[in-house]
């Protein structure tokens, strides 16, 4: 899912990199052949969170209602825009559907903001005993009337949101460089790559340093009591050297992909370095947020309501079932690789867009 954020990033660039209708069509088509994957990973993410952390699903989705609804609206627009944009009789016109794609592209900022709340906290209360109150049996309640939109008012959340947006755009630019044979698109992708990298570094490093020195939500392993601890996430990084290593490798890999592409014009594989690097970096960030006796979804309204892996996960039996099912993942990755290879074997060019093949 992290790797595939290049689809959203690319959508945010449609009007900036694509100046003619043909250029826009090439951009949309190279992204469009992957949009189902972003959807699939999103649905699987939803299902996996539901199956593994039902209390998170219940608390966050039911509480941060407007934040999740905004994100869902963005994704509805994406699903239809690829298929409908160039079709006659599409009611709203190609430009409208392209604008929908751009809206969805910038919607990735919301994902970053939601992830940032894993460090900064949200305003909710969980009381499982409520279930026996037949007049009001709801166990998770959100304390802020904005129901999730308040997360947008927190600067630290916004910084990660912007960092994720710029990273998605970086991945998209590297993906365009790899998959589209067109001089103008190549040149503009490189130009935006430089700018987006600079903005990404500013946002991400500010968020990172701020988070590492800020107070974090520690869990007492014996009593499960949650408390605020200074520089908790920095401690986590130091106390989990493997996570620190994954983080460093991830960041270096992202930077390698970018710099190599910028320095060497013939190098087009930067997407693989930056994509895999992004996955490793986000994995390390998530482990910093939830591992090493840390509450991964902290509550600022009632600190003891904070969600930890142990108090919000599924039963051992269900997790075992999910683990067995997860054995299928290598097989899934194998056929995805084979299909991608078959479809992406030849880069997109103007001739293909003007030909008789199916296109978006």
């Amino acid at each position, binding site marked *: 899912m992290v790797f595939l954020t290049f689809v959203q990033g690319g959508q945010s660039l449609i009007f900036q990199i694509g100046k003619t209708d043909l250029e826009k069509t090439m951009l949309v088509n190279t992204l469009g052949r992957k949009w189902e994957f972003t959807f699939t990973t999103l649905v699987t993410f939803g299902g996996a969170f539901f*199956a593994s952390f039902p209390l998170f699903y219940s608390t966050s989705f039911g509480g941060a209602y407007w934040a999740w609804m905004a994100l869902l609206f963005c994704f*509805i627009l994406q699903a239809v825009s690829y298929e409908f944009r160039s*079709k006659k009789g599409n*009611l709203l016109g190609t430009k409208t559907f392209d604008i929908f794609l751009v809206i969805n592209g910038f919607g990735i900022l919301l994902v970053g903001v939601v992830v940032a709340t894993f460090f900064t906290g949200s305003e909710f209360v969980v009381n499982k*005993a409520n279930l026996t109150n*037949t*007049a009001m049996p709801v166990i998770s309640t959100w304390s802020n009337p904005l129901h999730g939109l308040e997360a947008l008012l927190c600067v630290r959340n916004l910084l990660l949101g912007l960092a994720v947006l710029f990273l998605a755009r970086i991945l998209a630019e590297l993906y365009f460089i790899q998959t589209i044979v067109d001089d103008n698109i190549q040149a503009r992708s490189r130009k935006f790559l430089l700018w987006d990298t600079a903005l990404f570094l500013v946002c991400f490093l500010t968020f990172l340093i701020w988070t590492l020195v800020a107070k974090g939500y520690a869990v007492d392993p014996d009593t499960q009591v949650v408390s605020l601890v200074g520089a908790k996430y920095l401690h986590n990084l130091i106390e989990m050297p493997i996570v620190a290593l994954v983080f460093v490798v991830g960041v270096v890999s992202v930077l390698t992909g970018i710099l190599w592409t910028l320095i060497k014009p013939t190098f087009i594989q930067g997407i693989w370095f930056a994509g895999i690097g992004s996955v490793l970096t986000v994995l390390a960030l998530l482990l910093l947020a939830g591992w090493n006796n840390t509450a991964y979804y902290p509550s600022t309204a009632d600190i003891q309501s904070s969600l930890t892996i142990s108090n919000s996960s*599924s039963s051992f039996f269900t997790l075992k079932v999910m683990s067995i099912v997860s054995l299928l993942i290598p097989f899934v990755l194998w056929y995805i690789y084979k299909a991608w290879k078959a479809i992406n074997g030849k880069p997109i060019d103007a001739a293909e867009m003007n030909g008789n*093949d199916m296109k978006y």
Partner: protein
Amino acid sequence: METLDLSLVDWSRAQFALTAIYHWLFVPLTLGLGVIVSVMETYYYKTGDEEWKRIAKFWMKLFGINFAVGVATGIILEFEFGTNWSNYSWFVGDIFGAPLAIEGIMAFFMESTFIAVMFFGWNKVGKGFHLASTWLTVIGATISALWILVANAWMQFPDGMHFNPDTVRNEMASFWAVLFSPVAMSKFTHTVTSSWIVGSAFVVAISAWFLLKKREQDLAKKSIKIAAVFGLLGTLLAAYTGDSSAYQVAQKQPMKLAAMEGLYKGENKAGLIAVGILNPSKESYDDGVDAFVFNIKVPGMLSLMANRDLNTFVPGVTDLIDGGYPTVSKTGVAGVALSADEKRAKGTLAVEALRDYKLAKTAGNDSLAKVKQAQLEENFPYFGYGYIKDKKELVPNVPLTFYTFHLMVIIGMFLILFFIVTWYMNKKDLMKSQKWMLWISMLTLPLAYICSECGWIVAEVGRQPWVIQDIMPASMAVSHIGAGAVETTFILFAVLFTVLLISEMSIMIKQIKKGPEGLNQ
């Protein structure tokens, strides 16, 4: 004391129903048309006849237009469990979440990977690879249907789980009991085969339009050849699986069956309503007003369908509320049905036992906790009744359930006849000369959709007030948000889905008018 706003429950229901109804406009066509397209491409693969490729590509294009909106509405449904039914998500998420996650891993990845090859791979991969991709796309869609229907069936017949009072949720105890529940199997087979009917009716209707316009006659004839056989197979299998589905309803959700048949007072050798008009003056099960203005029954058939025995008793709404009628358990033990009041008393005992168990645990009184746990386990099968304020809440909307059920059955029977006639006339090359049949073919398409939607309305309206049968009513399952927020998103979704539906239909009509030659416009 804060209480739940009941309009929140209604708006949450309305929003989920709206999304589900829109979603189900697109899914059956994906499932049905997908198989037809795969068969057409198989013909191309085997014969090398370019005409079959052209035909397959034409229907594939329509498949793609339909697919996108199905995906968009589907993702909303998944997340609405969290956004609108958060209490439900915790209470049964340990069981319900697993099929959704497995659906993603096993089905969606397959579908999304191979659909790209199916659309864009014609000139990039070999014929065999492409054909396999087309089949894998529709197999992926069908596997997806399996898992979501397993999840839905579990809500109608909760099995393979136990309640954990410490975590205050239901936890999975047997994955196989969840997967192979008889309700899940009959629901899956009935839903998928009924979707084949929609796909077939779609192909026949559009082919009929081509014949009426005297265009693409070869394409139309070949398409009808496949769709008529597939549609007939679908209708026969749907009738067979529908019977087993009704049997499961009778065994596990007798109130739903009573609503489906408008049966207020139970009968021995109960008859099945063939045609009937409900009495609009009847407002409550106990108002003494006759249920029907008019009806024609097939004697004994309801008993046969419900119990596989013509001479057995089928309880009506009043019997299910008042109890007292004789029952036989799965193990053959005779008993007497509990009344709704008795069930509510047991449900209240279960809820109170859970509360006292938690208090005893907090106070460190393990012996009392043990007593309360035993009391909870004994009464847990009626847990949801503890949240029912008035026993009349236990009766679903009878007119809506009754009429949608009978409409579904009547249209279903018509569809069997329709596909037989279509198959025969196409075989004898009579279709193009019989305009009346071409018009019937086109008018049958909306009927197939109505039939399919009716099935879901019966299944979902008929089980109210339960989200999880007997365990959790809808009023216990909602999120704690303002009714106004849900009302707003309901309106936004309604507008957005409607615009998308109109766009889709407009694109589809343009594409059909262009025919196979206009595939890239």
